[in-house]
Every structure is written in C-alpha cells, then in structure tokens.
C-alpha cells in the first residue's frame, strides 16, 4: 500500500460519486472520504443530480431536464392530463369507493367506465349520494382514499375519455 496506490484510490473516489471508500489489504486499512459538495473537492462538475442529499430544492423541483430526457411515447400520459376529465364531489361528505364495507369497489385504476356509471359514493348526513361519471373512458387516477372526507367540488377521479 504505497503512496502511488493511495493516490490512485483517491483519484477513483474523486471521480466517483462515492462519499467514502474503505479498503483493507494485508492487515492494513485505509479509508478515503470526500465531502461531495465541498469547495475544495475540485470536482465541481460532479453532477449534483446523482446525489439527492446535496441538491438544492430548486433543482429537484425543476422538471425541465427530465422532460428533455423523456422519450416522446413515455411523456404521452402526462400530456394527456390536460385532456382528462375530473369527477367532482357535488357536496361535502365522506368518500366511499364501494357500496358497502365488504363489497368490491365500484371501479379500479385503469378500469374502463361508461358515462352514467356509478364510480363512488359521497355520504353526508347518511344520504348516500351515488356519483356517476359523465364521460366514458378509463380511470387514470383515484384521488381520494376510501373513507376520507371530501369538500364541495373536490376532484375524486381523473378519467381519460375515449
């Protein structure tokens, strides 16, 4: 474990995204650590993205670089979001996804629905309000958990219309 060897190890660590490296050889042990974002690191082009701990929040929230990397077909569902139709709650109450506690849910994720089909119940003051979808399509998102309170006009489902 000579100096040259150690320098080599340091270089490896510097060029990597590893924070620390520990090696034992013939009863000797060496540990190399680096502070990834430190100014004296020298390796400033170490991409911050690869190490989430050190990313400033602005960077994480910026979706732009990701979108660039995304192949066209993969971005399709996201683009569709604007075309999705929301099923909204007509009243304040509690959301139920199934007609009774031991029954199957009215609809599941990705399930096809027809316009006029009951998709859930919103209950208020023991009035069971069966909520119907106004469009035919596919359930893209279920936005409320079973048994949670909902507000007037709150979105309950997102549907990709046919």
């Amino acid at each position, binding site marked *: 474990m000579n100096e040259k060897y150690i320098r080599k190890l340091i270089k490896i660590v510097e060029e990597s995204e590893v924070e620390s490296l520990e090696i034992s050889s013939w009863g000797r042990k060496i540990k190399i650590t680096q502070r990834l974002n430190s100014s004296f690191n020298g390796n400033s082009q170490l991409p911050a993205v690869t190490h989430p701990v050190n990313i400033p929040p602005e960077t994480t929230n910026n979706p732009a670089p990701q979108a660039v990397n995304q192949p066209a077909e993969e971005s399709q569902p996201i683009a569709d979001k604007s075309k999705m139709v929301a099923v909204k709650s*007509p009243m*304040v109450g*509690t959301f139920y996804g199934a007609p*009774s506690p031991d029954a199957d849910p009215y609809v599941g994720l990705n399930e096809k629905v027809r316009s006029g089909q009951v998709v859930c119940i919103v209950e*208020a*003051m023991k*009035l069971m309000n069966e909520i119907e979808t106004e469009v035919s399509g596919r359930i893209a998102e279920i936005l409320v958990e079973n*048994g*949670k*309170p909902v507000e007037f006009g709150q979105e309950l489902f997102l549907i990709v219309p046919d």
Partner: protein
Amino acid sequence: MKKKLSHVQLKLLAEKIILTIRNNDKKFFSQKSLAKRFKVKFENITSATELLTEWGYKLKFNSKDKSLNFLSSPDILSDTEIKYKLKTKVIGQNVLAYNRVKSTNDIASTMAMAKAKVPHGTIITANEQTRGRGRLGRSWHSPPGSGIYLSIILKPRFSPDKAPGISIMTALALAETINEFLPGKVQIKWPNDVFINGKKTSGILTELSAEKNKINYLIVGIGINVNQPPGSFPDEIKETATSIRKVLRKKTNRADLLKSFLLNFEKEYDLYCKNQLSDSLKRLKKYSYLQDKHVRIISGNEKIDGKVIGLSSDGSIILEQKKETISVASGEVTIDVQKT
C-alpha cells in the same frame, strides 16, 4: 247486464262503498241504494261487502231495514286508509300501497327512474318488506303488519349539495309525529335516528339521483317500529330497538300515524325548501339526543372528538373543541360517557 265484476272492479267498488258509508255515518244506506248509487247489481254490493269484511273492516248489517253501517277499520296500510282524511296538499296524494315488497325504496327508485312523470310527493307503502334496506347494505327488520315501511319520491328544485339535510328534516317530522302520540319521550340522534327512551324506533334512508347541478329525484325511505310487541325483535337488535307500542303499552293505528307524519313532513319540507333548517334549529335542539354531550364522530377513517353545541342550517353538526369550533357533515356518533 249479468256480467260479473272482475276482482279489480270489485276492489274499487269495495273502496267506494267504505268511503261512502264511513263519511256519512248519520245517513242511511241500504245495499239496494248503494247498488243504485254505483250502478251495479245488488249481488256485487254483497260481494264487495264480503271483501271489506275479509280486509278487516267491521260493518254492521241491519237485517230489518237492510242498511249497512261502518263500525271500524282494520290496522292496514291500504291506499283507501291512507287517503281517507289525508290533509296534505301534495305529499302522499299519489299513493301506491303494497302488502309485501322486497323494499319500498327499490320500487320508488325503479318508478322514479323509469317514469319521468311520477309526481313529486308520490309515496310507496308496504305492510311488510322482505328485504328492507338500511345504510351501507345493512338490513331493516320489517315484519308484516306491525311497522310502517314508506318511501317518498321528491323532485326538489334545490341543488344537490342541499340534499343531505333532508335526512334531518325527515327525522324532525318523525319526532314531531311520534311526540303527538307519545309526548315527551322522543329524541333525534344526529343525523337521522329517532329514539324513544334512548332506543331506536325508526330509521331513515335517503337516496339521491342527481346531475351536476340538478336533482333528478330524491327518495326518502322510512321504517317506523309501531306495533311490534315487546320481545319481538331479533337478538341482534333487541337491546337497541323499540317500538311505539312497547312504550305506549297499546297499539296505534298505523294509517293514522302515517297521515300525521305525511302532514308534518310536508310542513317541514316546505320550510326546508325556503330556508333549509334555519327555521327548524330550535325544535331540532329540543329533540336533540346529543346536545351538550361530549362525542366522538367516526367519519370514514377520521376520528373527531368534541362537545356538541348544535346544528347548522345545512344539517352539519357543530362541535366545540379545545381551540376551535368545527362542523362535521358525516359520520357515526358515539357519546363519550367519561367526559359527559
């Protein structure tokens, strides 16, 4: 002319006869004069009278002058009994009285769905339900001949978000009715359980069909335990259920109770359409089972604790907590015995 009347025609004739002789108990009606009045054969009057006796009407037939007099009506929910002296303007003026059905709410929703023209205020009644429904797929014990099983079809003009308060409005109409027959013992547990001496005597199941901003129809289903004898409830509800008879210690004529309820319902419904529950809050407070009690409300997966201070005009319950006052629109309420 010798044509025999069909069963339906005979039924209609029997109903006409009972109405005539009942409304004019001072007047004299011979079977002959009735035959003349309704333009039927004398034998038809005899058959119709037999049918009436079969239904349970008590009639007095004077063999000397061949006159027919009304003595008493049976405790049945028939359209004849319901319409007789019904004082409402709209609610219950169109009656469909069944003897035995699966569920009056099912019939009501089928009718309301299929027939756009079914009038607002139409009621469906039954003497027995084989599959009386409660909330969340629960059942409602509906034995023959002792309870009132009723569904009211409403076509309100208010928006769907105002529909839930109808359950509470209905509970209030029921409490007012039971209070006429059994004063001082009725209470409402929010939102819509009606209690006598702390036990459940009635259940309300409201079902709504609505579009975004418009109610297609609203069905209010009501089950009332009227003449169930003490000890007749099944094991699973015997500790928590009661009937009017059990407390009053005598039977109540169900059609009379129903008519009184329909009148109270109409009154409360008119108030509700104008101002929701604003004009009823005082009376709701009077009947409240939960007022000033510390409660826990389980609303879906949420638990909410607080002290009940009243209701708001949309029917939500208002709870006072340590730091704030909140209103809750849905949930099962249990009283926190330790704090109360």
